Protein backbone atom coordinates (compact mmCIF):
# COMPACT_ATOMS: atom_id res chain seq x y z
CA UNK A 1 0.00 0.00 0.00
CA UNK A 2 1.41 3.44 -0.89
CA UNK A 3 2.41 5.41 2.14
CA UNK A 4 0.10 8.31 1.31
CA UNK A 5 -2.89 5.96 1.47
CA UNK A 6 -2.20 4.49 4.87
CA UNK A 7 -5.13 4.96 7.18
CA UNK A 8 -5.07 6.48 10.62
CA UNK A 9 -5.07 3.00 12.13
CA UNK A 10 -1.95 2.13 10.18
CA UNK A 11 -0.29 5.30 11.38
CA UNK A 12 -1.23 4.54 14.97
CA UNK A 13 0.11 0.99 14.58
CA UNK A 14 3.37 2.35 13.21
CA UNK A 15 3.59 4.73 16.13
CA UNK A 16 3.01 1.88 18.57
CA UNK A 17 5.77 -0.10 16.88
CA UNK A 18 8.07 2.89 17.14
CA UNK A 19 7.26 3.24 20.83
CA UNK A 20 8.24 -0.41 21.21
CA UNK A 21 11.64 0.39 19.71
CA UNK A 22 11.13 -0.37 16.01
CA UNK A 23 13.20 2.17 14.11
CA UNK A 24 11.86 1.07 10.75
CA UNK A 25 8.47 2.29 11.93
CA UNK A 26 10.05 5.71 12.48
CA UNK A 27 11.33 5.68 8.91
CA UNK A 28 7.90 4.77 7.58
CA UNK A 29 6.20 7.49 9.64
CA UNK A 30 8.78 10.02 8.48
CA UNK A 31 8.13 9.17 4.82
CA UNK A 32 4.40 9.30 5.44
CA UNK A 33 4.05 12.48 7.45
CA UNK A 34 7.14 14.70 7.18
CA UNK A 35 6.86 15.67 3.47
CA UNK A 36 3.27 16.81 3.98
CA UNK A 37 4.21 18.82 7.05
CA UNK A 38 7.13 20.39 5.19
CA UNK A 39 4.86 21.45 2.30
CA UNK A 40 2.32 22.88 4.71
CA UNK A 41 4.90 24.76 6.78
CA UNK A 42 6.71 26.09 3.73
CA UNK A 43 3.48 27.55 2.40
CA UNK A 44 2.50 28.95 5.76
CA UNK A 45 5.86 30.57 6.40
CA UNK A 46 7.14 31.21 2.88
CA UNK A 47 10.59 30.15 4.01
CA UNK A 48 11.97 26.67 3.42
CA UNK A 49 14.59 26.81 6.16
CA UNK A 50 12.05 27.78 8.78
CA UNK A 51 9.66 25.16 7.41
CA UNK A 52 12.32 22.49 7.85
CA UNK A 53 12.83 23.55 11.46
CA UNK A 54 9.10 23.39 12.09
CA UNK A 55 8.89 19.95 10.48
CA UNK A 56 11.74 18.60 12.58
CA UNK A 57 10.26 20.05 15.78
CA UNK A 58 6.78 18.68 15.02
CA UNK A 59 8.15 15.21 14.30
CA UNK A 60 10.27 15.34 17.45
CA UNK A 61 7.14 16.01 19.47
CA UNK A 62 5.51 13.01 17.81
CA UNK A 63 8.43 10.78 18.81
CA UNK A 64 8.20 12.03 22.38
CA UNK A 65 4.44 11.52 22.44
CA UNK A 66 4.64 7.98 21.06
CA UNK A 67 4.83 6.08 24.39
CA UNK A 68 1.74 7.90 25.64
CA UNK A 69 -0.26 7.70 22.41
CA UNK A 70 -3.81 6.58 23.08
CA UNK A 71 -5.81 4.34 20.78
CA UNK A 72 -8.77 6.15 19.32
CA UNK A 73 -7.19 9.57 19.55
CA UNK A 74 -6.69 11.71 16.45
CA UNK A 75 -4.62 10.29 13.63
CA UNK A 76 -0.92 10.85 14.19
CA UNK A 77 -0.71 12.86 10.95
CA UNK A 78 -3.59 15.07 12.07
CA UNK A 79 -1.92 15.56 15.44
CA UNK A 80 1.39 16.54 13.79
CA UNK A 81 -0.39 18.95 11.45
CA UNK A 82 -1.94 20.62 14.49
CA UNK A 83 1.45 20.90 16.19
CA UNK A 84 2.99 22.30 13.01
CA UNK A 85 0.17 24.82 12.63
CA UNK A 86 0.79 26.07 16.16
CA UNK A 87 4.53 26.27 15.57
CA UNK A 88 3.92 28.25 12.37
CA UNK A 89 1.61 30.59 14.25
CA UNK A 90 4.29 31.18 16.88
CA UNK A 91 6.87 31.97 14.23
CA UNK A 92 4.55 34.26 12.30
CA UNK A 93 3.81 36.22 15.46
CA UNK A 94 7.48 36.59 16.23
CA UNK A 95 8.43 37.52 12.75
CA UNK A 96 8.62 41.16 11.86
CA UNK A 97 6.10 41.99 9.24
CA UNK A 98 7.77 42.16 5.89
CA UNK A 99 6.37 43.21 2.59
CA UNK A 100 6.06 40.35 0.16
CA UNK A 101 6.68 41.76 -3.26
CA UNK A 102 5.36 40.11 -6.35
CA UNK A 103 8.19 38.33 -8.11
CA UNK A 104 9.84 39.81 -11.11
CA UNK A 105 8.71 37.92 -14.13
CA UNK A 106 11.56 36.19 -15.89
CA UNK A 107 12.55 37.08 -19.40
CA UNK A 108 11.59 33.81 -21.02
CA UNK A 109 13.39 32.11 -23.81
CA UNK A 110 11.11 29.99 -25.99
CA UNK A 111 12.52 26.68 -24.77
CA UNK A 112 12.08 27.47 -21.10
CA UNK A 113 9.00 29.59 -21.35
CA UNK A 114 6.43 27.12 -20.04
CA UNK A 115 8.56 25.93 -17.14
CA UNK A 116 9.44 29.44 -16.02
CA UNK A 117 5.87 30.60 -16.32
CA UNK A 118 4.73 27.70 -14.17
CA UNK A 119 7.32 28.59 -11.52
CA UNK A 120 6.30 32.25 -11.66
CA UNK A 121 2.65 31.30 -11.16
CA UNK A 122 3.54 29.16 -8.16
CA UNK A 123 5.63 31.97 -6.76
CA UNK A 124 2.80 34.43 -7.29
CA UNK A 125 0.46 32.19 -5.36
CA UNK A 126 2.95 31.83 -2.50
CA UNK A 127 3.19 35.61 -2.31
CA UNK A 128 -0.57 36.00 -2.40
CA UNK A 129 -0.98 33.40 0.34
CA UNK A 130 1.24 35.52 2.56
CA UNK A 131 -1.32 38.31 2.32
CA UNK A 132 -4.20 36.19 3.60
CA UNK A 133 -5.18 36.21 7.28
CA UNK A 134 -3.45 33.32 9.01
CA UNK A 135 -6.48 31.09 9.57
CA UNK A 136 -7.67 31.55 5.99
CA UNK A 137 -4.18 30.70 4.78
CA UNK A 138 -4.11 27.52 6.85
CA UNK A 139 -7.50 26.45 5.55
CA UNK A 140 -6.70 27.20 1.91
CA UNK A 141 -3.37 25.38 2.05
CA UNK A 142 -4.82 22.31 3.71
CA UNK A 143 -7.88 22.19 1.45
CA UNK A 144 -6.61 23.24 -1.93
CA UNK A 145 -2.90 22.46 -1.86
CA UNK A 146 -2.77 19.44 0.47
CA UNK A 147 -6.11 18.14 -0.76
CA UNK A 148 -7.42 17.30 2.70
CA UNK A 149 -11.09 16.83 3.51
CA UNK A 150 -12.99 19.44 5.48
CA UNK A 151 -13.48 17.13 8.51
CA UNK A 152 -9.72 16.49 8.62
CA UNK A 153 -9.01 20.22 8.41
CA UNK A 154 -11.58 20.83 11.12
CA UNK A 155 -9.74 18.35 13.35
CA UNK A 156 -6.41 20.04 12.70
CA UNK A 157 -7.68 23.58 13.19
CA UNK A 158 -9.98 22.58 16.06
CA UNK A 159 -12.98 24.14 14.31
CA UNK A 160 -16.37 22.99 13.07
CA UNK A 161 -16.70 21.82 9.48
CA UNK A 162 -18.90 24.80 8.64
CA UNK A 163 -16.27 27.20 9.91
CA UNK A 164 -13.67 25.47 7.74
CA UNK A 165 -15.91 25.77 4.69
CA UNK A 166 -16.38 29.45 5.40
CA UNK A 167 -12.64 30.03 5.88
CA UNK A 168 -11.68 28.23 2.67
CA UNK A 169 -14.35 30.05 0.66
CA UNK A 170 -13.31 33.46 1.95
CA UNK A 171 -9.65 32.58 1.52
CA UNK A 172 -10.10 31.53 -2.06
CA UNK A 173 -12.14 34.65 -2.80
CA UNK A 174 -9.40 36.83 -1.33
CA UNK A 175 -6.74 34.97 -3.27
CA UNK A 176 -8.63 35.55 -6.49
CA UNK A 177 -8.85 39.25 -5.72
CA UNK A 178 -5.14 39.49 -4.92
CA UNK A 179 -4.10 37.61 -8.04
CA UNK A 180 -6.59 39.23 -10.39
CA UNK A 181 -4.13 41.85 -11.58
CA UNK A 182 -1.47 39.28 -12.41
CA UNK A 183 -3.52 36.89 -14.48
CA UNK A 184 -2.65 38.39 -17.82
CA UNK A 185 1.01 38.86 -16.99
CA UNK A 186 1.22 35.23 -15.91
CA UNK A 187 -0.31 33.93 -19.08
CA UNK A 188 -3.86 33.27 -18.00
CA UNK A 189 -6.67 34.44 -20.21
CA UNK A 190 -9.99 35.71 -18.89
CA UNK A 191 -11.62 32.32 -19.03
CA UNK A 192 -9.60 30.96 -16.07
Amino acid at each position, binding site marked *: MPLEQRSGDDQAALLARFAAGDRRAAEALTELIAPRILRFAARMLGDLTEAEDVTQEAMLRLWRMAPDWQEGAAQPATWVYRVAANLCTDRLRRRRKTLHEMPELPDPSPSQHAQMMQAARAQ*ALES*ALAHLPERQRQAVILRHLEGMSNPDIAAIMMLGVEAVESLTARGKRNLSAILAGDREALGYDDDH
Partner: protein
Amino acid sequence: MLFLDAARDTPPELSASLRKRILADAVACTEAPPRPQMKAMGWRDWFSGWAAPGFAGGVTVAVVGFWIGVTMPMPVMALDAPEWLQGALGYLDLVAVQLIGVDDPLLMEF
Protein backbone atom coordinates in the same frame (compact mmCIF):
# COMPACT_ATOMS: atom_id res chain seq x y z
CA MET B 1 -7.89 27.89 -9.93
CA LEU B 2 -4.80 27.55 -12.08
CA PHE B 3 -2.52 29.31 -9.62
CA LEU B 4 -3.29 26.53 -7.15
CA ASP B 5 -2.51 23.91 -9.80
CA ALA B 6 0.82 25.58 -10.44
CA ALA B 7 1.67 25.61 -6.73
CA ARG B 8 0.66 21.96 -6.36
CA ASP B 9 3.00 21.02 -9.18
CA THR B 10 6.04 22.55 -7.51
CA PRO B 11 6.01 21.33 -3.89
CA PRO B 12 9.10 21.54 -1.70
CA GLU B 13 10.74 18.15 -1.27
CA LEU B 14 11.94 16.56 1.96
CA SER B 15 15.71 16.86 1.75
CA ALA B 16 18.02 14.03 2.71
CA SER B 17 19.55 16.11 5.47
CA LEU B 18 16.17 16.90 7.03
CA ARG B 19 15.15 13.24 6.82
CA LYS B 20 18.42 12.34 8.55
CA ARG B 21 17.82 14.92 11.32
CA ILE B 22 14.28 13.68 11.92
CA LEU B 23 15.39 10.05 12.15
CA ALA B 24 18.28 11.01 14.43
CA ASP B 25 15.73 12.59 16.77
CA ALA B 26 13.67 9.40 16.63
CA VAL B 27 16.69 7.27 17.51
CA ALA B 28 17.60 9.62 20.36
CA CYS B 29 14.07 9.30 21.73
CA THR B 30 14.19 5.50 21.65
CA GLU B 31 17.56 5.50 23.39
CA ALA B 32 16.50 7.89 26.15
CA PRO B 33 16.30 6.22 29.56
CA PRO B 34 12.79 5.06 30.44
CA ARG B 35 10.80 7.41 32.57
CA PRO B 36 10.36 6.24 36.18
CA GLN B 37 7.09 4.42 36.69
CA MET B 38 4.88 4.91 39.72
CA LYS B 39 4.65 1.75 41.83
CA ALA B 40 2.67 0.80 44.88
CA MET B 41 4.30 1.89 48.12
CA GLY B 42 5.67 -0.85 50.38
CA TRP B 43 5.84 -0.58 54.14
CA ARG B 44 9.50 0.47 53.91
CA ASP B 45 8.46 3.39 51.71
CA TRP B 46 6.26 4.72 54.48
CA PHE B 47 9.40 5.35 56.54
CA SER B 48 11.42 6.94 53.76
CA GLY B 49 11.95 10.65 53.32
CA TRP B 50 10.37 12.81 56.01
CA ALA B 51 8.00 10.12 57.24
CA ALA B 52 10.31 8.64 59.91
CA PRO B 53 11.42 11.99 61.42
CA GLY B 54 7.81 13.19 61.37
CA PHE B 55 6.58 10.06 63.08
CA ALA B 56 9.35 10.26 65.69
CA GLY B 57 8.47 13.90 66.39
CA GLY B 58 4.80 13.03 66.86
CA VAL B 59 5.63 10.25 69.31
CA THR B 60 7.94 12.54 71.27
CA VAL B 61 5.34 15.29 71.54
CA ALA B 62 2.71 12.78 72.69
CA VAL B 63 4.96 11.30 75.38
CA VAL B 64 6.05 14.71 76.68
CA GLY B 65 2.47 15.96 76.70
CA PHE B 66 1.34 12.91 78.66
CA TRP B 67 4.21 13.36 81.12
CA ILE B 68 3.39 17.04 81.68
CA GLY B 69 -0.31 16.37 82.04
CA VAL B 70 0.00 13.50 84.50
CA THR B 71 3.04 14.25 86.61
CA MET B 72 3.20 18.08 86.39
CA PRO B 73 6.96 18.33 86.77
CA MET B 74 8.44 20.89 89.11
CA PRO B 75 9.73 23.33 86.47
CA VAL B 76 6.17 23.73 85.18
CA MET B 77 4.67 24.18 88.64
CA ALA B 78 7.19 26.89 89.34
CA LEU B 79 6.41 28.63 86.10
CA ASP B 80 5.09 32.09 86.57
CA ALA B 81 4.58 35.10 84.37
CA PRO B 82 7.81 37.00 83.84
CA GLU B 83 8.21 40.54 85.07
CA TRP B 84 7.65 42.17 81.69
CA LEU B 85 4.30 40.37 81.38
CA GLN B 86 3.29 41.51 84.87
CA GLY B 87 4.06 45.06 83.86
CA ALA B 88 2.04 44.74 80.68
CA LEU B 89 -0.96 43.37 82.55
CA GLY B 90 -0.75 46.22 85.04
CA TYR B 91 -0.72 48.75 82.21
CA LEU B 92 -3.74 46.99 80.68
CA ASP B 93 -5.55 47.33 84.00
CA LEU B 94 -4.94 51.06 84.05
CA VAL B 95 -6.27 51.52 80.52
CA ALA B 96 -9.30 49.27 81.09
CA VAL B 97 -10.34 51.08 84.25
CA GLN B 98 -10.31 54.38 82.42
CA LEU B 99 -12.32 53.04 79.52
CA ILE B 100 -14.88 50.68 81.01
CA GLY B 101 -14.60 51.23 84.73
CA VAL B 102 -13.71 47.65 85.49
CA ASP B 103 -10.68 46.87 87.56
CA ASP B 104 -10.54 43.28 86.49
CA PRO B 105 -10.25 43.30 82.69
CA LEU B 106 -9.22 39.67 82.48
CA LEU B 107 -12.12 38.66 84.80
CA MET B 108 -9.74 36.86 87.11
CA GLU B 109 -11.78 37.82 90.18
CA PHE B 110 -8.97 39.23 92.22
